[in-house]
């Protein structure tokens, strides 16, 4: 508590007990030493126990397994991967699959949340009621159940390869997934459309049913949370702001974009960060329907094959914590920029 008075006052405001004259600082010092020693002792004890347990089980340690041959196939890989690739490539494939799913979910959920959140404020009774119904329906059902519904019920009802649904000529949907054209890098830049092959569509790119189920399920669930954030964000913008915009002769859409949105963003960003992080963390539910992301590939398959539980768990924990901190940091910077502007 030797800090300057400004810091001291801030700490007081945060509810810290003020230290009064006469309080013995020494006792605090020794108490902390004792606690520190206890913590270190606990860590050492756990470390020693783990070591002896691993020895008893005959488990080796070290990260050398990352360079061994993987020996298993992964159904979706954004970078070249075969069964002969080393395990670290499998890890990279899994990480990319996780990030792909997260980015797709964040995009769709934000769109849904924005639309429904604005819909809640609509003067049209039907629109606002339907938006509320969406919110209450999807928010109160466990997201895993929703994913299961899309995967085991809705997507199972899709037609087989022969009777695929053509959304457009180049967008094909069947029970193997959603096919669409994609840039081909093999021989220069070319856009390759999906072409019906013997067992599946070839060329282009396709999203497997597991991905679709997770994408729809996670987006609908988290979109409901985002809609609530958007609604309260807009409601936090004073009514006078809308009226002032209209009085200036701006069109309603311009008022929304130029006046209301920048102010709403300030109230929206902190809770939105939380939802984005939750969504990123929830991509791990993919393990329940075997979409090959980090939990099902690394924590599941690699852990069973390599027999290095400590290392595998450490890598997964560091990955999730690292990305979460990165997202929190980036959103924090964006938030700072938004709140600084106009002050």
């Amino acid at each position, binding site marked *: 508590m030797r800090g300057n008075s400004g810091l001291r006052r801030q700490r007081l*405001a*945060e*509810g*810290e*007990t*003020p*230290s*009064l004259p006469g309080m013995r600082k020494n006792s*605090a010092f020794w*108490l*902390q030493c004792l*606690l*520190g020693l206890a*913590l270190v002792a606990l860590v050492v004890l*756990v470390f020693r*126990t*783990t070591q002896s*347990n*691993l020895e008893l089980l005959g488990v080796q340690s070290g990260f050398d397994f990352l360079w061994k041959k993987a020996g298993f196939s992964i159904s979706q890989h954004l970078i070249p991967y075969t069964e002969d690739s080393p395990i670290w490539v499998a890890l990279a494939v899994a990480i990319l699959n996780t990030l792909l799913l997260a980015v797709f979910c964040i995009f769709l959920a934000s769109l849904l949340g924005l639309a429904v959140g604005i819909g809640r404020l609509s*003067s*049209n*009774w*039907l*629109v606002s009621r*339907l938006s509320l119904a969406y919110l*209450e*329906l999807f928010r*109160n*059902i*466990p997201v*895993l*159940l929703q994913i*299961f*519904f899309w995967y*085991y*019920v809705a997507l*199972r*009802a899709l037609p087989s390869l022969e009777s695929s649904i053509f959304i457009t000529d180049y967008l094909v949907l069947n029970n193997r997934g959603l096919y669409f054209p994609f840039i081909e890098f093999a021989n220069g830049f070319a856009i390759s459309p999906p072409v019906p092959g013997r067992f599946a569509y070839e060329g282009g790119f396709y999203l497997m049913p597991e991905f679709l189920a997770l994408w729809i399920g996670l987006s609908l669930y988290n979109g409901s949370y985002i809609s609530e954030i958007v609604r309260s964000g807009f409601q936090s913008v004073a009514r006078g702001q*809308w*009226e002032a915009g*209209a009085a200036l002769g701006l069109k*309603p859409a311009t*008022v929304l974009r130029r006046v209301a949105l920048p102010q709403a963003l300030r109230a929206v960003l902190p809770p939105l960060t939380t939802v984005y*992080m939750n969504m990123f*963390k*929830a*991509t*791990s*539910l993919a*393990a*329940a329907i075997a979409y090959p992301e980090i939990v099902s590939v690394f*924590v599941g398959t690699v852990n069973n094959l390599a027999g290095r*539980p400590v290392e595998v*768990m450490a890598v*997964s*924990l560091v990955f*999730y*914590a690292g990305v*979460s*901190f990165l997202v929190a940091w980036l959103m924090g910077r964006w938030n700072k920029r938004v709140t600084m502007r106009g002050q």
Partner: protein
Amino acid sequence: MASELTTSAARQRAGLSGWLRRNLFSSWWNAAVSLVLLGLLAMLAVRLFQWLIIDAQWAGSAPSACADTTSLCWPFVRARWPQFLYGLYPSEEVWRVNLGLAAGALLGAALAVRRMPARRWIAAFLLLAYPPLAWWLFRGGTWGLTPVQTSLWGGFFLTLVVTGSVFWVSLLAGVLLALGRQSRLALVRQACTVWIEFWRAVPVLVLLFVVIIMLPLFLPANIEIDKLGRAMIAFAILMSTYLAEAVRGGLQSLSAGQYEAARALGLNWRQSRLHVVLPQALAVSLPQITSNFIGLFKETTVLLVIGLFDLLGEVQRAASDPQWLGTGTTAAGYIFVAVFFWTACFCLSRASSRLERRITRYRAAAT
């Protein structure tokens, strides 16, 4: 917004037609949107009615009742009802589950009655004595009760046990963590902060795997915790950090004057936290705490990934029985679970917002 400003007095007629004009047909654009939505809604309602009721198979309770595997199969829910409720808990011991859960429900209901005599004692009993007693009743093994392994527990029962036990432990741990994060001792403060911030960044499923695989390695060989216990430890680690953040919000909303006043009265640390700080902080953070509770309740469904069978897990297990295979069966099971969770979560969140309003009123009256 602009359309509201231009609303003319003529439009504000009373009655149904006035209401319709104001709310659905206030402009050409609005009218078009309303009509399209009404059409879509009608189509959806017809389709849903067809799927849920008319096309569904209702009679019987044997697999043969669902000849058509694609349309909804309600007999599945009827046939597997006991499994959905209790999992594989032996049927001659099910009275123990019923007794334990009914006692809990009764105590909870008694607490909700505002004029209940001895409400304090009921609360104390529910918080301190009921959880261990209920666990003893469910688990058995002493005083003449036959032991029932936790691997047999399942269904609705397991969902409630996990939610209740984890919440009970986490609330206590969360309060301690929140107080620790504000501690005068830098080491305690830093340790709590790091602990909270790290676990908040980790998904529940990953932590479940980590605890289930790693905990036996961390502990000496003679200490063994079963899978349910390990899963609950994982949930409790996460839940306590969430609750710690919720309580911290409440602690920060208190003015420094409260702390100073407590000190001026000569209360020591424990007395001031217990009688002055926590009662106010917990009241403020109650909405956050309830929403975390609802989150935990929904999140227990991930237990099925690690091979424990909560309500959704039991439905999944029953639907993979070769006799019952089919999307109609699975869908019926899912709808049943969805209705259960939806009703519970909806009622809880409504109750929470009512409580929040009451607390706001109370606080406004107090200051």
